[in-house]
Structures are given as C-alpha cells and as structure tokens.
C-alpha cells in the first residue's frame, strides 16, 4: 500500500493553522465557516442531509450554512451562536482547526476561549453596517491574546451591489482603528459568505479586487509569533516515583530546548543539577523541545514537587511576588478588590488578590479610563499581589509562562484570564536564596545596547542598576586612573555589594580585572 503510506506521511507533515472567527452577531461568521467546509467538501453526506432537511423545514431555504457549526439545540432554535464550535478540515496544503465563536457581547468569554489558542483571527464585518463596537472589542481581545495575523473579511457584499467604494470605506475605517492595536498584519478581503464570492473561487462580481480568495490566502499565509524556542521552561506537572528507585518529573516543555547533560536550576529551591535522562515511552532522548510532553530525571536527589519550575542555570524566569497584567473579566460577579482569588499559572495554583485597577480599556478606541473594578466582559490593566510567588515571564515573550486564569474560590467560576505585562521580583531571600543575580557585561563602546537591556529588564520588573565609566568617574572612582588595578577592583566590589542584595548589574566598561 505505497499509495496510502505516502498520503499518511504527507498528512502528518503539512502544518497546522488554528484560526478563530470574530466579529459582531449576524455578520456571517457561522455562515462563512459552513460555506468553507461545504465548498471544500469537508462535510460528511449524512451530516449534510440532516442540515438540508432542517434548513427546508425550519429556515425555508435549501441550505443554511450556519447550521454546520451551530450544533446546539438552542442555537438552532434561536438562530444564533452561543458557544465555540471546533471544526477540522484539511486541504493538500494545510490542516486547519477552526473555532467559530459567538458574536453577542454576553458571550465574550466564549469568544476569548476560542481565540486563546488561535494564531490567526478571521474578523467579519457586515458591509451594510461597517465597523461596530463588537468588531473592535473582538479585534482588541485577539490582539491582547497575541494574535498577530488578522484577516478582515467585509461580508454580505451581495447586499451592497459588490461596491468597491463600500469596501474601501470600511477598510479605511478599520485601519484608523487598528493603528491603536499592536502591529498586526491585516489582509482585507470583500466576500459574500452566502453566495460564495471570494471564499474559494475568485468572485466574478468583484473584478476590481486583485487579492487571492480566502481559502487560498489561509493556505499560504506565513504565521508569525509562534513558539519561543529560546528560553527553556519546564513547569513540573507530576512527580513519577514509587516502588523502585526511579524518580522522574513529568511535564510539557513550555518553551525552549533541553539536552541531556545540561545544567538546570530548580525554582523555588534554587538548587542546581544536570539532566541525567529524558524519558519517554519510545525510548530516552538526547534532546527535547516545546511542546513535547516528557519525563526529566536529574543527577542529584533534589526535593521537587508539582508547581516547581525547571530552567537552565543562566536563563531563569522571574520569581514574581506581584504583577501587572491585562485582564479580561469573565464572571457575572464583578471583581472585588482585596478579595482572595486563586491564580492558576502553569502547573501551580496560588492565592492572590487584585490591589488596584490601573485603567480600563474602552473597546471603542482602546482609550484608557479610570475604573474601580472590572465587570463581566470588561478589559483592563490591573495590579495583582500574590501570596506565594510564581515563576513568570512576560506574555509577549512567552505565552505559557506569561498567562494565568483567575478562579473564584467560592463559586469555582473561572473569573478572568490574565496576560502578564510586568512583574516585581521577590527579594531573593524571601523566595529563593540560591537564585543568582547577574552581572551583565558590555564592552565600553556598546553603551546603547547596555542601556536598552537595562531599560528592558527594569521595565519587566527585574531589580537592576546600570553602571558605566562616565558614572564611575563622576562618583566612586573620581580621580582614579581607568587602567589601574584600583579602578577594576572598585567595580568588582560594587558588583559584589549590589548582587548580594538581589540586584543585578548591567555594566558597560572596558576596564575590568582579568
């Protein structure tokens, strides 16, 4: 069976694109997904027969494509989408997981659920209505979640005579808004989900549009902002031991790469060891990378439990005692300042509370306004105080170690989703005695680079100071010749004092002791 063998292999190696729909209710999201699946022949005939029968008896039309994804009884009865539907399809070029999301404001949390694992947002706009608040809210949430590829589909072009002017006006309207988001790449396309224009085939009704049809674009688009393969992070999920002397730490690699024999540090104990084995059912590995699920064994016997973090000795996440984060509130009970919530971050769940709402975002124009607390579907930047520190990164640099959910301990509701923008490091003796602070050295002519790194570190909340020759000569080393031993010793002593109190040093000088 050579034929199917190669088919199977090909199916395995083409890449996967997860995308989520977004936009206001009735803009045609479900219809478009139904159309895409129908036209690409991805619906089984028995399922199609059911849809056609229902369309004829209840909708008075041959086929209502939205029924393909609106799978719940109440959705079909009310003709709306309430919760996310996950659909799968593939073409010879790509595999797709589509999440079709609801447009109603009251179901915003379901939209966020669908978008959280997507790498592209397919935003629909009704050509007759243009950009509305829900378009903006969903675009903003997609942007906050880190989606950097947007497709903006202006739908129902059949109802505006396929007018180029209508399309162009909506494009400029959306462009004016999206300037306030992060730097997303946006592909604009005029379509009719109902009639099929520009969905799979180029539309004969809109010869003025030169771009590729939707499916063609989705098959070929380059997706940016993927995995972090640089910083190795391994939140311990499950400790596997008992009986004999096997002891392994099970988990999923959040980011980065790890090799057998590499030196690692375990947080919060700060102890170091070496990877002795990377165990899997299929045999031990020489190296493993995100997002593999493996079992790590260490050379040394260290006390490690679920919620601990394994990272490389010279590249650690921050031990954060408090955070600033963008938060989407998803519970009907509003946020209570000062109340104890549970914060689930990687594999650890800790107590924490909101000390302050720094500002709330107005989805209309992403402007910031003051707010006491957040209510259902509101988005804001907040300060979080943690009772136990977590091992975190900034969301934009690491989605997995930069995100958390908030659980109300009284109702068990998932109350909010958070994306870390800044952290405050716990002083070393409080959380982790052995965490080494760093002296980051730059040659004297790399002052700009050194300052930029210092800015980045302190913006993220790392305790650090900046030192260069000018500053030294003005103060500690006034009158001391730069090439003397005294000069370089003074620098070393300064670093010693500062790092002892848990503060890192960004040092820019050529006059160091060898």
């Amino acid at each position, binding site marked *: *069976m050579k034929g*199917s063998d190669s*088919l*199977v292999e090909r*199916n*395995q*190696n083409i890449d*996967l694109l997860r995308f989520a729909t977004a936009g206001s209710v009735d803009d045609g999201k479900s219809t478009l997904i139904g159309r895409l699946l129908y036209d690409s022949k991805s619906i*089984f005939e*028995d*399922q199609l027969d*059911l849809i056609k029968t229902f369309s004829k008896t209840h909708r008075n039309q041959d086929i209502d494509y939205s029924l393909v994804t609106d*799978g*719940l*009884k*109440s959705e079909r009865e009310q003709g709306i989408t*309430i*919760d*996310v*539907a*996950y*659909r*799968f399809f593939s073409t010879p070029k790509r595999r797709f*997981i589509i999440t079709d999301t609801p447009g109603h404001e009251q179901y915003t*949390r*379901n939209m*966020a*659920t669908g978008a*959280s*694992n997507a790498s592209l947002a397919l935003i629909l706009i009704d050509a007759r209505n243009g950009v509305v608040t829900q378009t903006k809210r969903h675009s903003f949430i997609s942007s906050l979640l880190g989606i950097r590829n947007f497709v903006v589909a202006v739908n129902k072009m059949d109802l505006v005579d396929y007018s180029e002017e209508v399309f162009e006006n909506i494009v400029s309207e959306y462009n004016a808004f999206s300037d306030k988001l992060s730097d997303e790449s946006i592909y604009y396309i005029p379509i009719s989900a109902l009639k099929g224009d520009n969905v799979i085939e180029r539309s004969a009704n809109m010869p003025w549009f030169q771009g590729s049809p939707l499916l063609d674009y989705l098959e070929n688009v380059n997706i940016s902002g*993927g995995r972090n393969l640089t910083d190795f992070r391994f939140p311990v*999920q*499950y400790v*596997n031991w008992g*009986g004999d002397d*096997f002891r392994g730490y*099970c988990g*999923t690699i959040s980011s980065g*790469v790890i090799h057998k024999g590499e030196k690692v540090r375990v947080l919060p104990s700060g102890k170091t060891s070496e990877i002795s084995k990377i*165990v899997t*059912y299929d045999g031990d590995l020489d190296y493993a*990378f*995100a*997002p*593999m*699920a493996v*079992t790590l064994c260490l050379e040394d016997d260290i006390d490690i439990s*679920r919620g601990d973090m394994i990272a490389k000795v010279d590249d650690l996440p921050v031990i954060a005692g408090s955070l600033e984060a963008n938060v989407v509130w*998803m519970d009907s009970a509003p946020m209570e300042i000062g109340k104890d919530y549970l914060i*689930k*971050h990687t*594999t650890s769940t800790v107590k924490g509370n909101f000390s302050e709402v720094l500002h709330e975002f107005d989805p209309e124009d992403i402007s910031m306004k003051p707010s006491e607390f957040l209510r259902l579907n509101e988005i804001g930047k907040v300060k979080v105080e943690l009772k136990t520190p977590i091992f975190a990164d900034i969301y934009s640099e690491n*989605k*997995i170690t930069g*995100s*958390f*959910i908030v*659980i109300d*301990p009284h109702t068990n509701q*998932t109350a909010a989703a958070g994306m870390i923008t800044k952290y405050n490091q716990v002083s070393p003796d409080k959380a982790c005695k052995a965490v080494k602070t760093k002296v980051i050295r730059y040659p004297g002519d790399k002052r700009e680079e050194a300052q930029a790194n210092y800015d980045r570190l302190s913006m993220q909340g790392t305790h650090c100071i900046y030192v260069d020759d000018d500053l030294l000569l003005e103060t500690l080393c006034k009158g001391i010749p730069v090439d003397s031993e005294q000069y370089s010793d003074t620098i070393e002593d300064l670093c010693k004092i500062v790092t002892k109190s848990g503060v890192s040093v960004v040092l820019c000088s050529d006059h160091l002791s060898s």
Partner: protein
Amino acid sequence: MTIKEESYRLSNLKTLEAESISIIREVAAEFENPVMLYSVGKDSSVMAHLAIKAFYPKKVPFPLLHIDTGYKFPEMYAFRDYYTKMHNLDLKVHRNEEALKKGISPLSVGTVKCCAELKTKALLDALKEGGYDAAFGGARRDEEKSRAKERIYSFRDKHGQWNPKDQKPELWNLFNSKIDPGESIRVFPLSNWTELDIWTYIYHEKIEIVPLYFAKKRPVIEKYGQLIPVYTDEHEEETKEVMCRFRTLGCHYCTGAVRSEADTLPKIIEEMMVARHSERITRIIDQDQDSSMEQKKKEGYF
C-alpha cells in the same frame, strides 16, 4: 519558518499526542480519584495507550471502567480482557444488573430507553459508587455536532448532567479543576483528534484493536439500511455472508457494519480518506432524534 523552527518540528500526531498526555497527567495530578472510561473501541485503545505513555515507566495510576450493557460483541469482551491484562491495567466493569434482569433490550423497550438504562444510568451509578471525581472519555470534537461544542474539561453537576449553555471559559491550556463535593468533570483528551488521526496513530504506534474493525466475510442481515451482524440462527432466512467491517463498535443490536474490503490498516486509512459519511452513521441510536446526542449528554451520557 526559520532554520531553528524547522529542526525542532513536531509532526501532527506527535503534537496531538503531547497535548493529550499533558491533559491526562494534569487530571491525575489535580483530582483525587480519576477513572478512565474504556469502551473497548479504537478511541479507547488510543486513549489507554496515551495513558500508558504518560506514566511510563510506571503503571497507569487510575483504573479503567467498562460500562457493559451486556450486549457487546463477543469479540469485544475477549479483546477487553486480553488488552487490559497485557498492559497491566486495572479494569473495573459495571452493569445495570437490575435492568438486565428485567429483560431490557432495544427489542423490548426501544433504543432510547435501552440506552438510558444500560448506558446512562449504569454510567452514573458506577461513577457514584466509585466516588470518581474525574472521568476520561474518548470522544472527539469531529464526531458529532454537540461534541464539537464541548470543552476539554466538561463540568457535570451533582446529577452528572451537562449544561451546554453555561460552560466555563477555557483559555490556553490552563484548566480549572475546582469543583464542589459531589460534582465531577468529564475530560476529553482526544478532543482535537480527527478520525483519520486516530487511524494513522494506530498504524504508526502499532496499537492493537478489536478485529471487528477489519473487513472479513460475516453473516449479517440488512435492516434500517444497515448491515447487522447475526450471532444466533434466529434470522436464518434473511442472513447472508457479506465482506464487511465496523467503523465504530457498540452493542450488537444497534451497530451496523459497512461493506468493505479493507482488511489491513493502510486499506482502512485509504477508505477513510475517501469516506463520504461520518462514522456515526452506523450507530442506530444517534438517529432517533435531531438532537439525540446532545440530549443524552445533558442527561449524563458521555
């Protein structure tokens, strides 16, 4: 794609495998008393295989539970006992003995009532008796329209019921495992697998499955447009020998076979790739009403 990304690339199946293993471990770590539903079918074989992988080199730390209606194919019982013994899995079996004593079967009370007694009630009783707070199921989102709507962690109230209109948000891979005493969750580690993924995985990993999945000449009768296998000589008249196989396995009264020549995995996969009907078409029970699966799920069925 950069060179670095290219050399640290995971195939689709390996990515799905990692995601499933991660879910299985998370539940084992966060719940007191999990159990894995084992229906003996291909998805169960894959799920059990993933559990074995997740805890290798140690034993799977939770039991497998088979809800036995008493009407499964004889080959399924034989395979169940062989497979669980072979992999050192802790198998528990539960039946609604009371209903069986009353003679409940699809022939006597119809499929809807029969399922309610022998599957849903048996399942709810078994979960209650075992005190299980989390139960793994092998359902996939591509199977059926209401399953396409379900979360990976699906909450059930004290009566084991699902409320599809009020599911908790589920962002990234951060699962909320907080429940009140008496409540439980159903967990679907295979949510994002398609039927084709299951078959190619079985092929790659050499996972054993019940021989009924492979085409063979079998005695059947044709009923409701389905091929129903015959195990007694009741229907001698209409019985004919047909080369056929099963796409899903359930109770012998309610599961039809399809005409097929596919007697090896590659042939099955090839057949799959051109399939025009969903696998559930061979389940007579799903076709009772338009929302029959959703209704059953609301009542506590998987």
